[in-house]
């Protein structure tokens, strides 16, 4: 790994979170460390106080017989006390295991059992009840500590403890005898950077969830790199509203705040999170694309109810922002009048808008998880919100790539994060080595082996490419990526997404794996194309009729051609240009099993269902007959048959390869 870029990189005296905490308590003891909207105001703890409480809680855990290496489950919403619990566990060299609070009892039990948890620190009665319900499955769980007493008064407190009570007791112990506290402080020093600092369970979308083990040193190195990268300081504020058990929260809020010494604020509850975020006005912000999306929709809906004047202003200045906003944000050359015009917009619209959304003070905002629509992305950026993308994984302790200020695109996730080493495998899979990369899956040696290459790279399972200036582009799940017979890389989703950027194209299904060229089946977007038809007074009776219309084909052919041009510019993809396409006579429909319920195309199924068309696509015929069973809205079934035309697509000349490797 190359030399550190970060100031605060883990020196031995700061290679675990408890050590960092102590450092912060010394360096900036009076600076706010955590806030929590409770009882109507933002209760605030400075670093000294947090350190104090962590020590007390550690003392409490020790009292319950927690030893090095024991696992401590943390279950609940974002609450300072739960964060203390995490750090307290780390102080004792025990391993905190945050678990999703909304997990149903059985999932919760699975994780706790799988992780051999001995003590669980939970938020409230709800969680306690889950554990009691599952107690039979949890022989190893010795104690449960709860934060909110409500409703738990009458429970048997044999193995149930109030967190407040532990803190209280610990305080008395400290007061009685100074050595007790000293002993705990020694525990802090006893911790080593190489120790497992936390165990994060990957949300089990694929199979059972696995416990990803991360070291303190690794985590801190990674965090300090990115903290420096975005020059986060102890003047920053974040709102900790992401699930405690998700790597994002542990990284962005816990790790980075410990490293940079900034303050994290916990919302009062789900209902008030939006309002709380507005009050706090975070300077560093993360949200998955869908959050930004729903925000935007809400903005638009609310604007619809606004007076004509306001709406006029709004749309005018949003237009201005679309035109100049990103340029200004990226520090490009912009004519003075445009700057003034934009400045006016800032006063009248952008500023207030960001204020209402609680974005006024944001310096750095990240989004990740799924691909973000370029319009959506640039909408926020054009308002002057420094929104960036990152690509990450639990196994990497989040960051693999992240975008630099002023060098942002919607379609790529940026260059490798500092000290991250990325390579693209032969099969197009993205592989990396990073400071924060995980040690192993807990008790899953086999799976660990699967996930790693022999030379110590982590397999992401995503296929990606580097664009000419070294920005990584995730194109597809590696599994889906195939090859044409001539060996050219074929990434169906990548092509399909490119096609779907055109409003006229609703769905696209690309074929090509193991064939001699790429061809696609398309659905036109009835509204978009319908409008066009009306404007050009083309009459049509049905989707089928419109889909079959010659001029429609011409339009679509245009789109396909431009996609090919785009592909031609990308050395890796250039080989997989679209040769032939057709427009389906019916819309792909989940009711017919052609789409998943989440509206993803089921390529295999479609291939079978429309086998005649697929063959036609490859045997060069100009049209083909197809008849398929369809399900109507009312559930009746029926056959529709059609003669579908097939077109050859214009192929673009391939530009000379200028592939670059990321350093």
């Amino acid at each position: 790994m190359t030399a550190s870029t970060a100031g605060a990189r883990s020196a031995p005296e700061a290679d675990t979170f408890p050590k960092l905490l102590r450092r912060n308590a010394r360096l900036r003891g009076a600076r706010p460390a955590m806030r929590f909207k409770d009882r109507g105001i933002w209760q605030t703890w400075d670093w000294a106080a947090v350190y104090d409480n962590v020590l007390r809680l550690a003392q409490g855990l020790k009292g319950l017989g927690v030893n090095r290496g024991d696992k401590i489950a943390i279950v609940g919403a974002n609450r300072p006390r739960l964060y203390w619990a995490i750090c307290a566990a780390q102080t004792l060299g025990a391993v905190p295991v945050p678990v999703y609070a909304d997990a149903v009892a059985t999932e919760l039990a699975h994780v706790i059992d799988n992780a051999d948890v001995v003590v669980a620190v939970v938020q409230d009665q709800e969680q306690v009840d889950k554990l009691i319900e599952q107690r039979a499955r949890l022989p190893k769980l010795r104690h449960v500590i709860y934060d909110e007493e409500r409703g738990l008064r009458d429970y048997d407190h044999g193995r149930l403890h109030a967190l407040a009570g532990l803190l209280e007791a610990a305080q008395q112990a400290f007061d009685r005898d100074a050595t007790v506290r000293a002993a705990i402080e020694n525990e802090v020093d006893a911790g080593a950077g190489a120790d497992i600092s936390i165990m994060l369970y990957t949300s089990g979308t694929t199979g059972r969830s696995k416990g990803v083990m991360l070291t303190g040193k690794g985590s801190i190195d990674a965090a300090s790199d990115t903290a420096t990268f975005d020059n986060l300081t102890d003047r920053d504020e974040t709102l900790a509203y992401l699930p405690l058990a998700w790597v994002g929260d542990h990284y962005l809020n816990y790790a980075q705040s410990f490293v940079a010494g900034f303050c994290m604020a916990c919302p009062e509850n789900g209902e008030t999170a939006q309002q709380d975020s507005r009050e706090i006005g975070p300077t560093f912000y993360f949200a998955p694309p869908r959050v930004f999306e729903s925000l935007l929709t809400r903005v638009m809906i609310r604007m619809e109810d606004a007076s004509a004047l306001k709406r006029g202003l709004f749309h005018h200045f949003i237009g201005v922002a679309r035109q100049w906003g990103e340029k200004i944000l990226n520090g490009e050359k912009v004519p003075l009048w445009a700057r003034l015009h934009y400045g006016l917009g800032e006063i009248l619209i952008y500023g207030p808008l960001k204020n209402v959304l609680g974005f006024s003070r944001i310096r750095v905002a990240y989004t990740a998880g799924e691909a973000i629509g370029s319009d959506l992305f640039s909408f926020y950026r054009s308002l002057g919100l420094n929104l960036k993308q990152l690509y990450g994984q639990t196994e990497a302790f989040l960051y693999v790539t992240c975008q630099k200020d002023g060098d942002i695109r919607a379609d790529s996730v940026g260059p490798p994060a500092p000290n991250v080493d990325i390579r693209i495998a032969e099969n197009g899979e993205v592989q990396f080595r990073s400071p924060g990369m995980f040690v192993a899956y807990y008790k899953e040696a086999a799976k660990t082996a699967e996930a790693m290459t022999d030379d110590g790279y982590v397999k992401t399972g995503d296929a990606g490419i580097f664009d000419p200036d070294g920005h990584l582009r995730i194109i597809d799940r590696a599994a889906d990526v195939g090859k044409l017979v001539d060996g050219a890389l074929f990434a169906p989703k990548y092509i399909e997404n490119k096609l779907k950027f055109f409003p006229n194209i609703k769905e696209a299904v690309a074929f090509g794996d193991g064939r001699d060229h790429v061809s696609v089946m398309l659905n036109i977007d009835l509204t978009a194309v319908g409008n066009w038809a009306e404007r050009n007074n083309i009459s049509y009776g049905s989707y089928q009729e419109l889909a079959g219309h010659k001029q429609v084909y011409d339009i679509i052919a245009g789109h396909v051609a431009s996609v090919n041009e785009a592909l031609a510019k990308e050395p890796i993809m250039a080989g997989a240009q679209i040769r032939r396409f057709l427009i389906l006579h019916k819309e792909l429909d989940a009711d017919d099993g052609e789409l998943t319920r989440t509206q993803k195309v089921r390529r295999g199924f479609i291939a079978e269902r429309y086998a005649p068309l697929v063959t036609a696509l490859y045997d060069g015929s100009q049209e083909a007959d197809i008849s398929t069973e369809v399900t109507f809205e009312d559930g009746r079934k029926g056959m529709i048959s059609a003669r579908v035309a097939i077109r050859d697509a214009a192929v673009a000349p391939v530009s000379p390869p200028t592939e670059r490797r990321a350093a």
Partner: protein
Amino acid sequence: MFYREAGQFKTSYAADMAIFPILQDRIGLAVILAIAFIAIPLFGSNFLIQTVMIPFLVFALAAIGLNILTGYTGLISLGSGAFMGVGAYACYKLTTIFPGVNIIVWILASGFFAAAIGVVFGLPSLRIKGFYLTVATLAAQFFLQWSFVRIPWLYNYNASGAIEVPQRLLAGIPVTGANATPVTRYLVLLSIVILLTWIASNLVHGRIGRSWMAVRDMDIAAELMGIRLLPAKLLSFAVSSFYCGVAGACMMFLWYGGGEANDAFNINQSFTILFMVIIGGLGSIIGSYFGAAFISILPTALKFGLPAMGIALSGPVAEHLNYIILGVLILFFLIVEPHGLARLWQVGKQKLRVWPFPY
């Protein structure tokens, strides 16, 4: 639109319960005060100060007083004019009996006499509610007005039967009497009004104010909460009358410079102040200012504004027009916004806070 509330969060109850929790509001307030204390005295013409600002401030004070009684405690009074009179005469007697004492002390002290009288006439509120009580306050109005005229001792047996404000100095500068410049009187008045406004808002934002509002909204429930009705009402009467009293004293000493009860403290004065409260907004301190500004400045505006616009008006016509417009406006406001200018202000402010959104 100008509000940037993101990042303004409260970490203590004191901050959360502040009367102006939003930074921008505090700034706005500071600006207004600066204008009132510095800009106007420096650049304001005597006309502006004497004919616009001073009446405005006097009425604002009286309106706050009545608002405490009517707006916050829900007791309608038509006696405020008379209570102002009590203040004026008290102040007159005090300063003529003890000329040595600082006049401002007496202006404030006169409020206590008004308060005492107010309590006496508030006593019926124990048994009487609503309109009945309103009529009871009329008794106060007419009886007091009558006594002002009938008891010569009150105006030191002046032949004119009127108060003749003597000259009083403050740090060697005349603040009352013929030689007091408008600016001095304005500044003295302004200071008094600001001070009392601050106190009023303190009262209504605390336990006292809550018990008043409780009595107003649901007196039975209030009593079951442990609020003693009579003391609450009487306190309200006392405070209200205190404010009216001081306002009356200010009116005589810092504005009229002398005058006679029947035209200064008559029933119409009581009505005028009631209108200010209604139009300004019941149960709102700032509303009292709006109402006062509106109704005290309207006549002036008519008398001097229209001719300035080239529309010549004879005195009486302006007078009639004034009546008509006032009547129409009252109706208009009650119909369009029964909660008065204060509500309009709130709504506007809310709009600015959520700008560009409608809600």
